[in-house]
């Protein structure tokens, strides 16, 4: 039936070139085999190395321990490829801190949400992360407030440095920097070093700023009273004595107390819960400006309470507390809670309760390598403060693409090999090739090979 076509094909095939054995086919085949194996091995090696090189992937974000009554909770480091808050906002947050080991190659803010999610907060070089509001929803930054739920940034006042949040998270104490950081002197006086700074507060509800003081405030610190009606703020020129001022948000002035270079306002939660005193921290061994530059020279510190009615200063019983007080951030069960930044870079930052007897009870440990721990005040005072660890799968889209690009070749190779093996099995099963070749050659009256 198909003999004519078969015969035509046979005749056509007779015009085939005389077969020849290529030179050194075997040796070339061997070389090809060695190259193939070397490439496969190298690809596998590269894959393993690239996976191992991804920071923390094999080792994990940080070694975390469960939080219980005795073991302090731990806050792990983020993964370098973590999602940013702009890609997926995770507010309100339970903690914020700085970590240098991210893809941004700069100190990057890290926001830890209530659901344990980690988000990066990229910053420009030299920028501060800012202050998280007591409810964890807002982040006060230079000249703006970022809503961590929506990711929206709301401008406050140009060149406004945030100092402290009111306990209700609706007002922000700030200093409008009038005379620092400028090299030009304009006609309207905003760059004039002789022009004092403005101290005031920004109201989130009305979007307005109320200026309370017009004075030099080069290294300011401040705190709202528990009822939010008074403000304690330290003002003064850099390198000169600082003054503690207590003022009413309505504008009425209270006490004014000149501080030594070894005293400073304790922090955002410096007011005692009863609203009668403001807490200072006094360092032993060095002025605070020097202690900050060389923390190891600090020989203990203590708290002092300033009576806001009389201005009297009272030392606490403890005289030389350990660690380096980064700031008084809240009151837990009536006891002050500080961020202890440690006196050496090897020490991790901790959230500690400064007990009246001078002892220190650790609530939360920040993984070594991260810093500038910032825990919302509500969380400090009432929160569970559990351990948190970053999820490596909460990654930026480009990481997923890179991972796919790394994994796709070996996976495709496996699929191809599998398919080829199946095809060979199918060939064996079908009997194709058996009896072909030499028999066919004879049937075709083929040529002898030279």
């Amino acid at each position, binding site marked *: *039936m*198909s*003999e*004519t*076509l*078969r*015969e*035509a*094909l*046979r*005749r*056509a*095939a*007779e*015009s*085939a*070139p*005389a*077969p*020849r*054995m*290529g030179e050194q*086919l*075997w040796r*070339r*085949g*061997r070389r*090809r*085999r060695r190259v*193939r194996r070397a490439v496969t091995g190298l690809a596998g090696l590269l894959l393993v190395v690239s996976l191992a090189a991804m920071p923390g992937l094999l080792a994990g974000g940080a070694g975390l321990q469960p939080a219980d009554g005795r073991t302090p909770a731990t806050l792990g480091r983020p993964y370098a490829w973590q999602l940013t808050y702009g890609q997926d906002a995770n507010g309100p947050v339970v903690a914020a801190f700085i970590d240098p080991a991210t893809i941004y190659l700069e100190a990057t803010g890290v926001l830890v949400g209530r659901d344990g999610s980690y988000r990066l907060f990229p910053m420009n070089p030299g920028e501060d992360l800012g202050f998280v509001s007591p409810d964890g929803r807002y982040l006060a930054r230079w000249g703006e407030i970022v809503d961590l739920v929506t990711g929206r940034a709301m401008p406050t006042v140009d060149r406004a440095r945030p100092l402290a949040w009111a306990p209700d998270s609706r007002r922000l104490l700030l200093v409008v920097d009038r005379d620092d950081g400028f090299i030009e002197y304009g006609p309207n006086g905003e760059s004039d070093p002789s022009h004092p700074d403005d101290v005031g507060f920004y109201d989130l509800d009305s979007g307005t700023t109320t200026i309370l003081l017009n004075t030099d405030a080069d290294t300011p610190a401040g705190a709202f009273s528990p009822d939010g009606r008074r403000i304690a703020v330290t003002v003064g020129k850099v390198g000169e004595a600082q003054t503690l001022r207590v003022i009413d948000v309505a504008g009425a002035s209270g006490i004014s107390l000149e501080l030594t270079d070894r005293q400073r306002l304790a922090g955002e939660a410096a007011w005692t819960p009863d609203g009668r005193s403001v807490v200072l921290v006094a360092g032993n061994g060095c002025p605070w400006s020097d202690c900050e530059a060389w923390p190891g020279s600090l020989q203990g510190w203590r708290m002092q309470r300033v009576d806001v009615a009389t201005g009297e200063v009272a030392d606490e019983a403890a005289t030389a507390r350990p660690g380096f007080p980064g700031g008084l951030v809240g009151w837990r069960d009536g006891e002050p809670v500080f961020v202890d930044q440690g006196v050496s870079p090897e020490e991790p930052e901790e959230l500690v309760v400064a007990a009246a007897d001078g002892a220190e009870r650790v609530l939360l440990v920040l993984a070594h390598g991260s810093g500038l721990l910032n825990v919302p005040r509500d969380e400090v005072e009432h929160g569970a403060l559990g351990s948190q660890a970053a999820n490596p799968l909460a990654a930026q889209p480009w990481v997923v693409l890179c991972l796919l690009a790394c994994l796709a070749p070996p996976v495709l190779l496996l699929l191809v090999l599998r*398919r080829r093996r199946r*095809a*060979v099995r*199918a*060939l*064996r*099963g*079908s*009997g*194709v*090739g*058996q009896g*072909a*070749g*030499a028999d*066919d*050659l004879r049937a*075709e009256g*083929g*040529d002898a*090979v030279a």
Partner: protein
Amino acid sequence: MTDAESFDEYARSRLPMLARVAYLLTGDPFLADDLVQLTLLRLASRWEQVSAAREPDAYVRRILYTQHVSWWRRVRREALPVAVLPERAAADFTGETVTALAVREALARLAPRQRAVLVLRYFEDLSEAETAAVLGIAVGTVKSQTRDALARLRVIALELSGSLAEVNR
């Protein structure tokens, strides 16, 4: 016998057949020669596995056909200069040869996979299932490719019209 010797023995025994199939597939003596050499080179690089499986013919056939299809996609019909022209069998100038030439030219105008299907089915006398196994395609695809190839041959090779009509039946 060493691997090199067994490979050499096998390659020499299969060489004529490979050359014919390659020629039918490519329609060009130079390309056919290259295709054979490439197939043998790949065979040499995997000789241990292939000979251990005791099915070298199946493997060689698969390399030849799949390599032809993928290779054709890459090089198409670019001129390939060679130093030595391969020898060609002398023509007999008979009527059958005219038909053979027509077939060869017609094959050259088919798609590579259609060409492979025809060669496997009508030159190597493989069944549809065997052809499907060699090419790694479904039996249904073999049927449709065969049908399309024959239909196209019928149009472009009038000399074969009669025989192709028979084949179709």
